[in-house]
């Protein structure tokens, strides 16, 4: 059957337990009389289809909740992932400080060119805030990662964040493909890490065709 989409991006939600990763992916609220079978089992991942500049892009978004107790995310989760949402809770100082540890964990386990974005979640709980927006922005500048405050509860900026991350992945990929097809970019002598990546069975680059 013909492929009905242009790109497929695997994305991960990462951060301390309790920062609201699951509520970014899952927003069912149940009433007192009924229990949702789905919420009892929990969501593993979602597939979403978005339009990016006329391209049909499939996002496969994984929740890593329940894995945090190992303090690292298993390499299986990182395999093939092209984008990572680093989530902290603005009402929890510790979860903010741990973002640096999560970044280190990503550097050790994920593909070197994985796109990242920092989300300061629960920004609706302003009275309990422990981490100012400015500190979030500062951290993002330090690591040269994009940043936005979100409220999964109010659906604030969540969709924006996924579009932004997906757009950045697509831009990076198109740039790489352009470089690959036009090697006269004057980068002689510079060994690019992609040489190592070639050993991996399928790189994410080869799974996405930009026509």
């Amino acid at each position, binding site marked *: 059957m013909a492929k009905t989409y242009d790109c497929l991006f695997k994305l991960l939600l990462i951060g301390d337990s309790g920062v609201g990763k699951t509520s970014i992916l899952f927003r069912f609220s149940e009433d007192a009389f009924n229990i949702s079978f789905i919420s009892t089992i*929990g969501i593993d991942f979602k597939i979403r289809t978005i339009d990016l500049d006329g391209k049909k892009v499939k996002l496969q978004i994984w929740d890593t909740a329940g894995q945090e107790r190992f303090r690292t995310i298993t390499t299986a989760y990182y395999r093939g992932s092209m984008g990572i949402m680093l989530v902290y809770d603005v009402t929890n100082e510790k979860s903010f400080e741990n973002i640096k540890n999560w970044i280190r964990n990503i550097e050790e386990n994920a593909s070197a060119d994985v796109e990242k974005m920092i989300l300061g979640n629960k920004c609706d709980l302003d009275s309990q805030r422990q981490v100012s927006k400015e500190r979030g922005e500062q951290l993002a500048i330090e690591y040269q990662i994009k940043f936005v405050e979100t409220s999964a509860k109010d659906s604030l900026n969540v969709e924006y964040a996924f579009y932004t991350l997906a757009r950045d992945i697509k831009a990076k990929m198109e740039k790489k493909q352009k470089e690959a097809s036009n090697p006269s970019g004057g980068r002689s002598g510079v060994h690019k890490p992609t040489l190592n990546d070639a050993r991996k069975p399928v790189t994410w680059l080869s799974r996405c065709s930009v026509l």
Partner: protein
Amino acid sequence: MAEMENDVSPIETEQREYVEDGKNKLVVQCKFCGSKILDKKSSNYIAQEKDLPLMQQASNNDREVQNETIKEFYHVENMYTFENIGFTHTVDNHKYLSCADCDAGPVGYHDTNTRHSYVAISRIVHSK
């Protein structure tokens, strides 16, 4: 004789409205929020009996999962065919499918052995 001539079950009559060439003629959406689950003509109609847990489980019933038998499905071979869908964690070689926007479900199931998915037609709506 008359019975023979009118040998078309209600299910078959209904089928004509949403199945064409064995495929879903119309867009498949969530019953509750309208989220687009499948594009038109992207899955195959299949008649098979399968028990699925009810979308709402009575909370006074401890532990026992209440099921209902579903007889008609849309068969999706590749999970990336879905427009928007949620997959639950695995229970006995199955993942259950849920709406990606409002999390209603199960709207079907995914077999982790064959990696094929099945959408319960009685739990979705069709639209043009």
